C-alpha cells in the first residue's frame, strides 16, 4: 500500500477536515494512519493542541486500540484470524506456517466475519477464505 511521507503541515491540513466532528480524537488518529501508514510521535501533540485535549488523552486513545501503530508498516500486511471459528479449521497451524515465512509482516486478528470459510486472512486489505500459505503468498504479490 502507498502512503504519503509524514509532515506536520500535511497532518494539520487533514485535521482541519475534522473540525466539525464531535469526539474527534480517535478519528484523527485513524486519519493519520490512513494517510501516513502509522501515527507519528509528533501527532500526539498536534492532535492534542488542535482539538484542545491533553496529550495524555490522545496518548491514551493511541495505545488502547490494536489497529493503531506508531511505526511505519512493512510493505505487505498479513493478518491471520486466530479466533475460535478459524481455530476449528486449522488457523493455528496456518499462523505458524505464515509466521515462519513472513514473521515481520504477520499479525494475529480476531474475526473478519468469514467464519464459515475459514481459516480467514487479510492480505494488504484483501480478504482470503479457506486460506493457505500458497493463497496468502499469491495475494501478497
Amino acid at each position, binding site marked *: 500500500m502507498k502512503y504519503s511521507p509524514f509532515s506536520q503541515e500535511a497532518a494539520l491540513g487533514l485535521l482541519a477536515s475534522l473540525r466539525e466532528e464531535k469526539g474527534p480524537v480517535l478519528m484523527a488518529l485513524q486519519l493519520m494512519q490512513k494517510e501516513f501508514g502509522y501515527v507519528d510521535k509528533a501527532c500526539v501533540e498536534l492532535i492534542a493542541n488542535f482539538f484542545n485535549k491533553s496529550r495524555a488523552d490522545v496518548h491514551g486513545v493511541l495505545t*488502547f486500540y490494536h489497529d493503531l501503530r506508531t511505526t511505519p508498516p512493512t510493505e505487505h500486511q498479513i493478518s491471520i484470524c486466530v479466533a475460535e*471459528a478459524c481455530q476449528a479449521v486449522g488457523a493455528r497451524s496456518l499462523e505458524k506456517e505464515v509466521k515462519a515465512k513472513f514473521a515481520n509482516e504477520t499479525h494475529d486478528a480476531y474475526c473478519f466475519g468469514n467464519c464459515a470459510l475459514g481459516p480467514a486472512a487479510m492480505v494488504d486489505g484483501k480478504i482470503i477464505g479457506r486460506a493457505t500459505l500458497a493463497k496468502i503468498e499469491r495475494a501478497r504479490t
Partner: protein
Amino acid sequence: MRVFVPCDSAALSIGADEVAAAIARIDSTIEIVRNGSRGALWLETLVEVETPTGRIAYGPVTPDDVQSLFDADFLHGGTHPLSLGKTDEIEWLANQDRVTFARVGIIDPLSLSDYRAHGGLLGLIKALELSGDEIISEVTESGLRGRGGAAFPAGIKWRTAAQATSDQKYICCNADEGDSGTFADRMLIEGDPFTLIEGMTIAGIAVGATQGIVYLRSEYPYAITTLQKAIDIARADSWLGKSVLGSTYSFDIQIRIGAGSYVCGEETAMLESIEGKRGVVRAKPPLPAIEGLFGKPTIINNVLTLATVPMILAEGASAYKARGVGRSLGTQVFQLAGNIAFGGIVETAFGITLNELINTYGGGTLTKRPLRAVQIGGPLGAYFSTDQFETSMDYESLIAAGGMLGHGGIVVFDDTVDLAVQAKFAMEFCAIESCGKCTPCRIGSTRGAETIDLIIQGVRVDENKKLLLDLCEVMTDGSLCAMGGLTPMPVKSAMINFPSDFTGAAR
C-alpha cells in the same frame, strides 16, 4: 440477460471477483449484477442466471469453471455438473424463513429501485403515518428483542428514550460484530444496507432522534464501503436528510469506524469509542437510553434488531410474533461456522433444535471427523457437547442449558479439539481485549490462563480446578460488563461438559 455474482466478502474471499471477470471476458455484453450472498456459503461463488422461469444457480463456481458453463449454455439454464436448479428450490434455502434477510442475496445491494421492488421502504412509509408512540407500541407488540445478544425488549428501550426530554437524541447501531462465528451483521450490511438505514430512520422518528451513527468495525472494510455508498444514495434520494421522504422529520446517519477493539462491541465502551476515547466500559445506570452518547438519550441496537423493524412495521407485529416459541418471538439469524460442511446463514423461527441446525442444515463437520463440541454465542458463549443437541434454540432454553444465544453464531469443532486449550484461549482473549476497568477481568483473565495451563500440565489438578472455579465466580460477580462477566461461561462449560479434557493427562 442478467447474471448474478455475489459481492459479499465471503464470496470475494474465495474468488467471486475473478469469476465475474472471467464471465465478462468471454461475453462482455452480459449484465453482471453484484448481489449479496444467499448465505449458503459453501456454494460460493454461487452464480445465478435470470431465466423466464426464475433464477437458476450454479455453484461453487471457480474461474476455471466459467468456460465450461458457457459451453453448457448456462445463460439459458443449461445443465452442468455445478447446476443446482432453481435457486428458490434449493432445499437448504427453501426451508428457511427469511424475514430480516428477506432481500439479502436477491437484490443489488445498492439499487434503490431493486429495494423498492422487493418491499423496501414500506415500513418507513407506514411509520410516517403513525405517531412515535404507535411505532413503539408496534415494535413492543412484535416481541422483538435485542439481537446483539442481551435480548432486551427493543420496544421498552425505545419507550425509555422516547420519554426522555432532550435537545438531541441519537440512534446508535452497534455493528461491531466481533464475536467469532458471527457474520450476519456484515452480510446484511453488504447485501441489503438500505434495510438497516430504513430501520434506523424508523427508530429516529419513533423516539425523536435526528442523528444516527453506525459503529462499524475496521475488520469489515467491504461493509464500510457498501454502507457509505448506500447512505450517500439515500441522501441523494431525499430519504435521509432534512426532510425524510418529504415529511417534517429530519434524520441522517454517519459511520464511525472501530479500531480493532473487541470490548467496543459492549454498548457503553462503544459510546466511549464513538466519543473518540479509550473504549472503557461505563457503569450503568445511567442507562444509555437516558444518558448515552455525549450524555444524550441514545438507543443502541444491533444491526439485526434495527434491520428487522422495517418488516415489523410493513407486515405488522402479529405476523412477526406468530413465529418463535415462548418469549423468543420472531426469527433468529443463525450463523453456522467453524468446522462445518454447509456453513452460512440459517434464518428460521426460534425453537429449532441445535441438532437440526448442525446436522440437518450444517451437514456435520467439514473434515468428516466426528463432531465433538459446539460453541454458541461467540467467545463468551458456552461449549456444548453432542449430548445437548436436542436443546431448543431460543433465549430461555439456552440459558437453562447453561449457555446463551448471544448473537446467534454457532462454531463447530471436530474430535481433534481440546477443550482445556479452548478454555485457556477464552481467558487469553479476555486478557488481550479487557478494557482494564474491572480488576477481576483485567488481572483475573491472566491468572485464569495461567491456572488452566497448570491443569493442562497436570500440576495439582484438583486444587487448580477448584481455584479456577473460584476465580470464575469472582470474574462473574465482580465485572461490570460481559467481557469479564461471561468469560467464565466458555471456561466453566468446557470443564462441566468435557471433564476428560481437564484431568491433566495429555489428550
